[in-house]
């Protein structure tokens, strides 16, 4: 896996370029799955004007890389890529992007979901919403904890 597999980005993510890089990583790729987590214009019913994403530099990359490595042990992947945005993010912009490439679709789908589920619960990122003059830290989601738990062997 090259050093580009996991990246923290302070500027908007070019999901088309990232997808292309994964899709072209090998000649026998038959399936590419991408996931884009997008900043919604509302959070729990309240309009927001922006999100602030904070991360723990060093640990964030390490955590995601270890999840990608675990995914590669479980499924035959030709390539994987995770880009996580930090800083101020506007509605409609991509917060996190995951792409996986395999010979067949089952592995590509499962690996992308697996990476996202773990990223949600154990990668050190924190979201704060900005809207109506207030800044509010987003609470952790129990549903995410359950989603990650389903992969435990």
């Amino acid at each position: 896996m090259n050093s580009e597999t996991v990246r923290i980005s302070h500027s908007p993510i070019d999901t088309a370029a990232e997808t292309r890089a994964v899709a072209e990583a090998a000649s026998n790729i038959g399936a590419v799955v991408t996931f884009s987590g997008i900043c919604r214009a509302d959070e729990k019913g309240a309009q927001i004007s922006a999100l602030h994403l904070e991360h723990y530099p060093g640990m964030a990359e390490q955590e995601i890389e270890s999840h990608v490595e675990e995914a590669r042990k479980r499924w035959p992947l030709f390539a994987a890529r995770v880009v996580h945005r930090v800083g101020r993010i506007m509605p409609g912009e991509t917060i996190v992007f995951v792409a996986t490439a395999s010979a067949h679709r089952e592995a590509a789908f499962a690996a992308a979901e697996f990476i996202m589920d773990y990223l949600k619960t154990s990668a050190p990122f924190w979201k704060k919403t900005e809207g109506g003059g207030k800044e509010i830290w987003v609470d952790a989601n129990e549903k995410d904890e359950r989603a990650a738990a389903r992969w435990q062997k």
Partner: protein
Amino acid sequence: MKIVYFAWLRERLDKTEEDVDLPASVETIGDVIEWLKTRGEEYALAFDNPKVIRAAINKTHVRAEAKIAGASEIAFFPPMTGG
């Protein structure tokens, strides 16, 4: 010992990191939290609910029972909300 804080913990303590001299009796992450709570009201409030505090030693997730021997950096933060 270097201690770093993130998200609302960072905001409530109004610091991103600090260097502290931990007494020898402080052996685990749980001990660090108890010791920090004695340092002032902002700490006592920030660390009031242990359920919403996560910790890392040298950038690896650990539980409250984890020994801090060998640690060069301890981090405290709320449950992660990335992705």
